[in-house]
């Protein structure tokens, strides 16, 4: 094909810089198309939402530990409609529960893990000047932001925010107040955002990797983001379809999820009926199981980077880890109904889904085992990122192993509606994924700012969080095994059989509140280090991957000289080499 017309010659780097400086505050920091600025925007917004979602849960923990007792000080501030006299109403508890889940998953962890780290680190690690579609990237952030605002605004509509759980099961959600409509609109915005992001990540990874960077030379983190993007791309649209159908049910009065002859408050509903509440569950979990891997794969990627760097040796079993990632991605699409054993699906279906579930646990175990064996014989540096990465391993391990009984139909049925499930899931995501995200913040902070975060504060943050996380979640296994339902707004206080374990609710709650106190050193450290942290060079951790060849912080366009990859990602402690690491881009 001929190429008529002249393409403008690329500007010199200095000219780019001058052009960039001329952008002004709004285009530089707010409506930026630079992947690093967008990554930081995503990261900070995600961290704020994480803390907000955590605060909702701290309110719930008061009600669970001290049901019916007025909450001092804060209780009266929340108003008569939510906490009359400081005592929480069940409706408000349901709002908090639904929005805690929604905010933590869709507005906290995913934006931080994929939007934040993916945007900031991935293009740098593959030596790209930016993402493939910078303007789509900006649109992705602003769709996310609008989705977040919609979710927050729903707290102030009559009847309050969504109250039907983060899963929004029908028909409860169809009959719920107007907050649910806001939830659906917010979700459609968030899905649009992650769709744009996913297209961008995949295209960037395939097209913009530098010369010599073949797929089997990718850092583990790049692979993790690559697989995650496919999950986002293909799993989210069915939820969008389901959201549109639920919106139709709520606004246009259709009956997609409404069965015939439903009786509400003693009266038979007059809608057409003939719909299926189970259809919603299928569509929801078809998204939400891959979503679990969207939460965990980037975390594994971050931990892989940090472990290789701080053991000063290559990742053990790099190839099997990559194959496991890809296999996990495929399998995550055919395990969803293990969330639905309680629906009475019959043994044939259950047998299929419990088999796939047992199979999917294998690649997870391969990755975790490879990470643990990677520690063997390393000269380990116990800095803050490494501590969080090391904390991830046993915490994710507990989360994963406690999931096995939930993957089997027979043992799932008695456990499924108890606190055991809450404990299992939170071990995977809270001391699992969130620890990995903290590790990533400490690890790449010098790249983003040119300064290191304080190590002492970091260690206080780590050890405090490690202890508190276990105090919060370990009792939940015991409460759950005692049979306490996870859907009670008084934590089981009205049930005789729950009395012997009620004191553990108090323990969990105090664990959560003290956990909040241990986040203060992090928040202080984060902002203080931006301006006052110890200055570092371009490669403070003596790392091998390409992002460390860029200046810290990298300018618009990232690299002063376009890098080239000459070797695999983790050439640490190579025999006969002059130093204990050989950067990927060093000839």
């Amino acid at each position, binding site marked *: 094909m001929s190429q008529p*017309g002249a393409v403008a010659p690329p500007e010199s780097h200095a000219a780019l810089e001058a052009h960039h400086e001329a952008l002004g505050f709004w285009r530089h920091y707010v409506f930026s198309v630079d992947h690093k600025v967008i990554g930081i925007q995503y990261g900070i917004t995600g961290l704020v939402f994480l803390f907000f979602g955590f605060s909702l849960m701290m309110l719930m923990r008061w009600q669970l530990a001290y049901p019916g007792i007025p909450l001092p000080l804060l209780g009266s501030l929340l108003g008569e409609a939510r906490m009359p006299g400081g005592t929480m109403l069940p409706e408000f508890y349901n709002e908090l529960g639904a929005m805690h889940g929604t905010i933590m998953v869709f507005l906290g962890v995913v934006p931080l893990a994929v939007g934040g780290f993916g945007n900031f680190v991935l293009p740098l690690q593959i030596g790209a000047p930016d993402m*493939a579609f910078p303007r789509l990237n900006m649109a992705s952030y602003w769709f996310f932001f609008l989705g977040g605002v919609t979710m927050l605004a729903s707290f102030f509509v009559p009847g309050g925010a969504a109250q039907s759980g983060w899963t929004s099961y029908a028909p409860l959600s169809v009959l719920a107040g107007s907050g649910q409509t806001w939830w659906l609109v917010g979700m459609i915005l968030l899905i649009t955002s992650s*769709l744009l992001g*996913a297209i961008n990540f995949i295209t960037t990874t*395939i097209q913009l990797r530098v010369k010599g960077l073949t797929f089997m030379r990718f850092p583990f983190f790049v692979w993790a983001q690559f697989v995650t993007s496919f999950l986002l791309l293909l799993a989210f649209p069915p939820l969008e379809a389901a959201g549109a*159908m639920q919106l*139709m049910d709520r606004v246009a*009065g*259709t009956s*997609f999820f409404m069965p015939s002859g439903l009786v509400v408050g003693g009266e038979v509903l007059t809608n057409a009926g003939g719909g299926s509440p189970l259809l919603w569950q299928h569509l929801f979990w078809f998204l939400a199981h891959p979503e679990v891997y969207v939460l965990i794969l980037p975390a594994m990627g971050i931990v892989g980077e940090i472990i290789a760097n701080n053991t000063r040796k290559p990742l053990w079993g790099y190839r099997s880890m990559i194959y496991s990632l890809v296999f996990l991605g495929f399998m995550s699409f055919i395990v969803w109904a293990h969330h639905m054993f309680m629906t009475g699906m019959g043994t044939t279906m259950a047998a299929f889904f419990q088999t796939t579930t047992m199979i999917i646990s294998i690649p997870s175990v391969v990755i975790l085992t490879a990470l643990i064996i990677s520690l063997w014989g390393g000269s380990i540096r116990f800095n803050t990122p490494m501590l969080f990465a090391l904390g991830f391993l046993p915490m994710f391990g507990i989360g994963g192993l406690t999931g096995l009984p939930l993957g089997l139909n027979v043992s799932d049925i008695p456990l499924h509606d108890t606190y055991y499930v809450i404990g299992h899931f939170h071990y995977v995501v809270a001391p699992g994924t969130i620890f990995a995200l903290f590790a990533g913040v400490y690890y790449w902070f010098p790249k983003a700012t040119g300064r290191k975060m304080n190590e002492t504060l970091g260690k206080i943050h780590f050890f405090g969080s490690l202890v508190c996380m276990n105090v919060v979640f370990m009792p939940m296994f015991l409460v759950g095994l005692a049979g306490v339902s996870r859907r009670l707004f008084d934590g089981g206080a009205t049930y005789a059989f729950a009395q012997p374990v009620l004191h553990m609710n108090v323990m969990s709650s105090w664990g959560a509140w003290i956990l909040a106190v241990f986040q203060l050193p992090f928040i202080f450290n984060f902002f203080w280090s931006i301006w006052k942290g110890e200055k570092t060079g371009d490669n403070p951790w003596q790392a091998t991957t390409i992002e460390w060849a860029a200046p810290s912080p990298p300018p618009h366009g990232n690299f002063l000289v376009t890098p080239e990859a000459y070797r695999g990602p983790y050439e640490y402690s190579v025999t006969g080499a002059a130093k204990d690491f050989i950067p990927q881009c060093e000839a």
Partner: protein
Amino acid sequence: MEIPYTVEVRRDTGLTNGRIGIWLFLASEVMLFGALFASYILIRTGAVSWPRGDTILDVPLATFNTLVLISSSVTMVMAWASLMRHRFGTFRIYMGLTILFGFVFLTVKYFEYSHHLHIGEVPSTNNFLAIYYTLTGLHMLHVAGGMAVNAYLWGPGAKLWQTNPQWFTNRVEHSGLFWHFVDLVWIFLFPTLYLL
């Protein structure tokens, strides 16, 4: 800043960024409509009774609309082919026809919708009409979206032809891929809703 492979092809992948991007987008669209078709099957198989489409919907009108959309796909290809032969004037004509066919499709759909609404056949009447309105409504949004992009490429976006014809041709190709997809969805919708 110049993003590499926006216009030129990366040699080892043989692709431009935009072409990967549009195909990935179409993959997600397949999942979106796939979920809706799957829901249709689930609701229909679970229904006590289900009307045949032609007892409620107007088949001749929809057949006409099918022909209109297929024609618009042909003119879309011709628009792109004109650019490949550097005939910008012909591109304008074919692209204009594509937009016009889209407009005809939407107009026919408007009369179809208003007829059903007029005789009280609304989405809440039964689940057949519910899925009919949801699927065709979502499809119409896609038609309108495709028309908006095509109108941009016909009008203000065509300035790119003067400075970078290759890039402009790529854009028309990507818009065309989306347009063919929208057409294809209708090819599935027509028998599913009107004939079965």
